[in-house]
């Protein structure tokens, strides 16, 4: 494994068992997280972003989830094969995770301090006062100046933004190599959202922790990510540096997503929306998954599934038959 990568998903296939039927939700997803980068994972609701991230930590509920023919390399350990004990040593310690809902992600019945200390003491053998100092230090580093007081407060005494900061502190307290953030700002209002984004960027620069940043907001990706992966229907459809993908999107789905970001400077009468909706997982379909919604679809798109083609040296890749043509075919180039 290349030492530039902290995590490599070699391949990932996830299905769900429902009423004896097996429904495929993630199909041959593969990507790498590089050391120190912020990698964005975008896609519409239901495209499989959350289950991809949960499978890294082995937190998918099974049943109903079934993971087959998959390999996720973290250093030399395959996280799919790892035992529960091995995973417990990694979770919250070397790979940690924060979630969308700061209002419900903290246990309402324990103090912030209790929940923070729990993480530290689980993974590091420290005295009580040392652990306490680390917690307070971490709370301060996420911008909670009243750290000492907050240690003794309950989640309901904090605002949504503060709770998300607490969640970030909890995730960062053991200085993980990877932080997975599943839509950490979606539930927050806009000003708080940009504060949290700034904080995550700062932490990434200061500590060198790699971040897998899941969102459906391309504006957020442009703001903080280095690279971006676009998912559609349980597949990766485009991958590349933020610059490449935003300047020169190759997949019609990515173009659609970019077009549907509201732009103040370029006032449109109506907001653009990709027609149709994400296919239900399990709906059997030949050819490209996006073809039914794609304005450029040709006959071949309904027949065969396109390969994931590398387009540039630095890893801009896309899964589309029109890779060459698309660029010229659209009017609204960014």
């Amino acid at each position: 494994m290349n030492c530039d990568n902290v995590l490599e998903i070699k391949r990932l296939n996830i299905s769900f068992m429902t009423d004896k039927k097996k429904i495929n939700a993630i199909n041959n997803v593969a990507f790498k997280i590089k050391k120190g980068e912020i990698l964005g994972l975008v896609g519409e609701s239901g495209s499989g972003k959350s289950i991809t991230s949960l499978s890294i930590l082995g937190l998918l509920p099974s049943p109903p989830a079934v993971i087959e023919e998959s390999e996720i390399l973290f250093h030399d350990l395959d996280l799919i094969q790892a035992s529960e004990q091995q995973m417990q040593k990694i979770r919250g310690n070397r790979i940690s995770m924060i979630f969308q809902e700061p209002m419900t992600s903290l246990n309402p019945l324990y103090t912030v301090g209790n929940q923070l200390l729990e993480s530290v003491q689980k993974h590091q053998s420290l005295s009580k006062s040392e652990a306490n100092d680390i917690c307070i230090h971490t709370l301060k580093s996420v911008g909670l100046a009243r750290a000492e007081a907050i240690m003794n407060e309950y989640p309901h005494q904090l605002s949504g933004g503060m709770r998300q900061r607490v969640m970030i502190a909890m995730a960062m307290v053991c200085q993980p190599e990877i932080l997975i953030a599943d839509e950490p700002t979606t539930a927050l209002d806009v000003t708080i959202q940009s504060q949290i984004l700034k904080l995550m960027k700062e932490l990434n620069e200061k500590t060198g922790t790699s971040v897998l940043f899941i969102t459906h907001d391309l504006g957020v990706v442009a703001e903080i990510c280095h690279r971006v992966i676009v998912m559609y229907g349980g597949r990766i459809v485009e991958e590349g540096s933020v610059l490449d993908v935003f300047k020169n999107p190759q997949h019609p789905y990515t173009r659609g997503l970019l077009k549907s970001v509201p732009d103040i400077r370029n006032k449109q009468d109506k907001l653009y929306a990709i027609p149709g909706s994400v296919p239900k997982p399990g709906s059997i379909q030949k050819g490209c998954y996006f073809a039914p919604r794609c304005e450029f679809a040709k006959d071949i798109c309904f027949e065969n599934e396109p390969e994931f083609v590398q387009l540039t040296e630095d890893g801009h890749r896309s899964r589309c038959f029109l890779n060459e043509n698309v660029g010229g075919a659209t009017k609204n180039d960014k």
Partner: protein
Amino acid sequence: MFSYTTKRLFSLIPVLLGMTLVVFFIIRAIPGNPAQVILGQRATKEAIEALTEQLGLNKAWYIQYFNYLKDLAHLDLGTSLRTKAEISQEIFPYLAATFELTFVAMFIAIVVGVNAGIISAWFSKSWFDYVAMLLALVGISLPIFWLGLMEQWTFSIQLGWLPTTGRENVRNPVEAITNLYLLDTLLRGRMDQFIDVVKHIILPSFALATIPMAILARMTRSTVLEVMNADYIRTARAKGLKMFVVVYKHALKNAFIPILTVIGLQIGLLLGGAILTETIFGWPGVGRYLYDAIAYRDYPVIQSGVLIIAFFFVMINLIVDLLYGFIDPRIKYTE
């Protein structure tokens, strides 16, 4: 918190007053006259009238009720018509016997029921879950007298391991201190008697524990199962905590408020004197005491006995309400 508690305590007064009124009239509605019962079938009319007057039962009802309340206000529970003993003295050993039985039964019910519920939720749809929930369903539907008789038949008569009835070995009686025999025998350092008392309490406490145990197991399973889907459980797992800590620390505490409510109600019910169980197992508790008092139309004993039970019932409810606040910091007792 303190002022809330005092307020709640004061609000109990009208409840208990209402209780006295209801009981006062209900027992007088039961056909039969205490004097008649005391003197027997062949007593003369004059003798009965004389005794009725002596007992003060010929006075107008409101005078009787007022006198009763006046005594209560002085914390005087009255005297038994039958034994002439002070009720507050006489009832004590019976109350203690019921407390002891209730405590042991609830202890068994909570330890077994709550844990069975937790494990069923943790490993839901496993064979343990199916077996435990089937047993719980059976437990809820079993008639308690039948269960008691089966216990006696199996463990006393067939196997001869445990005594059928009573609270102690009558040939080796316990010298009471608190009347809680498990405690008293230990205080006196009489291990032989302690073992004896334990043997006596096993069968009735298991019979009594069955229903609360089954209710708690089902209740705990469903609330823990619900809580396990919460976001903070996923957070706890993402921290790398052991499943045991996730379940017993993070899930259980959140599931505990409904569990506590059930525990409170069940303790209240058991304290009311589990008359059936006490009768089958010859357990000298308040249930039996009141049952006898009703047979003798011993009005003061019935009145005061019911009042005491009602008092403990409402007190337990109050304690449960206060415990909510200890479990959940979001519950504030401001009013």
